[in-house]
């Protein structure tokens, strides 16, 4: 390739990054990548493949941001050089700008030979990312219905992932959720190494509920479950062919979920604790442990990294406002929202009675998905008897009002589009010392955070 042209691409991209930062638009994450991609389409390929410490792609409907963050924390603690695209930049241009930010004007990344490339990758971006970066490992967290107006059907996403595996190096390691049969399907026809992760804790088995996004095996047989944790995730087998859940190399048992964090046993690591909670975060931790193990990181580094990890933006963020503790729990799709509700139910069960203060915020902008029908696939009924007060916000607050009315929640303290009105109502309906769980969609979370920043409760920075 032509070094001069690549240098020009890097220069143009860096200039755009500087200009973006000067304009204070989004911290300069996406634009430089966009410019460099146009100037030099080979940029991602050449810079990305120079990373000799391993190139990891992490994808899935839910949990890819948190999983990537845990891996980053372990890498940082272990002193391994790495680059990592941050949240909101998991498309090709975000990956490009991440690479570009570390490249010199000569088109090289200093120390690339031992550097790890850690890339959170949008589901639909996986094929081009795999083609460009020749990953050494690909991790799949789960596959659920998500913003069908943007991503299409679950089958469409699975087909994209299979296409990515067709162009990935044959010796790459797949890190797969053994409990999600759709993710497990990625191992079919894969000759390279597979690292399975899964959950072994009967206490979390449920009778099922919610929308199942995987009903049939590729052979046409129904899935049967020895244990179902949530949705289609659990100990499954096909009733027609021989496919079944694989025994995982990385497995969690004896899970304890608290308000401030979770702990669980992992064979080889002993009891590990982390300041993230919810069964979904246990799965994220397992995916991250699988990635770390595939990168050859030590058990000590993995345990220490998990203990240090901080929640990603808006995911289990804690905000103090006038003596109230607001706990932000992002939920973008039915599976994510149901996981949050299950966590709230677990917390409420420890307190007893109708103890929960809950604010739901629903937007229908492009990043949220235009279609809000998905709220009818969420089991708001799960915590109907445990909600003491609720507030509903966002551009589609009225849709939530009907949803929770039919779910048997108490009459909301507010149904309002404007974040300021929702926050005022929360303050009016609670006292100092109270705790409020806030469950927003992505852009609703941005709006709420801006309002909280205006009131001096959070810093305005993106993280």
């Amino acid at each position: 390739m032509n070094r001069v042209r690549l240098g020009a691409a890097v220069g143009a991209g860096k200039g755009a990054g500087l200009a973006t930062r000067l304009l204070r638009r989004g911290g300069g994450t996406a634009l430089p990548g966009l410019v460099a991609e146009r100037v030099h389409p080979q940029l991602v390929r050449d810079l990305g493949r120079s990373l000799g410490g391993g190139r990891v792609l992490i994808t899935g409907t839910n949990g890819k941001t948190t999983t990537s963050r845990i891996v980053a924390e372990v890498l940082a603690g272990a002193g391994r050089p790495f680059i990592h695209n941050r949240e909101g930049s998991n498309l090709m241009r975000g990956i490009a700008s991440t690479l570009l930010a570390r490249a010199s004007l000569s088109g090289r990344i200093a120390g690339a030979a031992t550097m790890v490339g850690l890339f959170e990758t949008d589901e639909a971006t996986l094929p081009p990312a795999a083609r460009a970066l020749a990953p050494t490992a690909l991790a799949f967290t789960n596959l659920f219905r998500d913003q069908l107006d943007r991503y299409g059907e679950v089958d469409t996403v699975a087909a994209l992932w299979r296409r990515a595996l067709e162009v990935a190096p044959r010796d790459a390691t797949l890190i797969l959720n053994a409990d999600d049969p759709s993710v497990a399907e990625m191992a079919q026809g894969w000759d390279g190494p597979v690292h399975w992760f899964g959950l072994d804790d009967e206490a979390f088995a449920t009778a099922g509920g919610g929308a199942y996004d995987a009903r049939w095996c590729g052979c046409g047989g129904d899935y049967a479950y020895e244990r179902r944790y949530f949705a289609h995730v659990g100990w499954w087998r096909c009733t027609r062919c021989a496919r079944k859940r694989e025994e995982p190399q990385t497995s969690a048992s004896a899970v304890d979920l608290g308000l401030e964090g979770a702990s669980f046993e992992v064979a080889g690591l002993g009891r590990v604790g982390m300041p993230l909670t919810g069964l979904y975060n246990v799965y994220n931790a397992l995916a991250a442990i699988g990635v770390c193990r595939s990168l050859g990181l030590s058990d000590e580094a993995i345990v220490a990294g998990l203990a240090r990890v901080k929640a990603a933006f808006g995911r289990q963020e804690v905000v103090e406002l006038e003596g109230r503790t607001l706990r932000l729990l992002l939920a973008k799709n039915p599976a994510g929202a149901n996981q949050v509700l299950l966590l709230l139910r677990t917390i409420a069960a420890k307190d007893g009675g109708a103890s929960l203060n809950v604010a739901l915020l629903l937007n229908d902008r492009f990043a949220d998905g235009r279609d809000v029908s998905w709220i009818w696939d969420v089991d708001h009924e799960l915590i109907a008897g445990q909600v003491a007060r609720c507030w509903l916000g966002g551009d589609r607050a009225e849709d939530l009002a009907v949803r929770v009315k039919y779910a048997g929640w108490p009459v909301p303290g507010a149904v309002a589009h404007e974040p300021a009105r929702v926050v005022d109502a929360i303050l009016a309906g609670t006292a100092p010392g109270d705790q409020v769980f806030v469950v927003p969609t992505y852009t609703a979370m941005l709006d709420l955070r801006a309002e909280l920043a205006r009131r001096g409760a959070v810093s305005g920075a993106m993280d």
Partner: protein
Amino acid sequence: MELRVAHLYPDVMNIYGDRGNVIALRYRCEARDIRFHLGQVNIGNPFNPAEFDLVLIGGGQDREQRRIAGDLVGRGPAIREAIGHGLPALAVCGGFQLFGHRYVDHDGSIIPGIGVFDLETRHPGPVADRCIGDVVLETELGEVVGFENHGGRTYLALDQAPFGRVRRGFGNNAVDGFEGARHNNAIGTYLHGSLLPKNPRLADELILAALRRRYGPEVDLAPLDDTPERAANQNAAAIAIRRSRRATG
């Protein structure tokens, strides 16, 4: 009184929050002390339409629709006959397509439907845009709001009545301005998911038609406080008017 609802293929045809329609019917019955009985009909289950007052079917993924189509065709004559005798039904999205004569894929392959409605659906091919967005309809039951997301284009026979006229959105085929289909008390539509929660009058019309058919024409429904439902309807209509296309045709 009691309302017996048959939900066809609930585990499969449920892709866009179609469960919301069941939740709305149940709420609006139980709030009036009408017993709500839900019968779930899956592939291979026995199903006699005469034992039900209302039939629901939602939408599924392509693979799923192909899978239930064969089973549904076997039930076609019984469902057609019951609807011919006034059985109320709501068929949404993929279920609506299968309540027509056939679905013709862009490669010419055909999924047979059951012909409750005199219509067929054709897929224009992978390069054609899907019809996605907020919708406002003008129907015999007033303004109806919802969200559509479909690749297939549906064409009504000349004497087939639509469910409504499109004010905002695409409708059956983005050209003729029709949305859905109506035959006796059966309604087919592309508006999925939260259709009945946000359109309480439509939900009540279906319940009332079902109860009158069973208990006699003097049956009436006690009014409910629909303040939140009406607010959701008006908000959705305002959003559709702001950002969805004006209908053609």
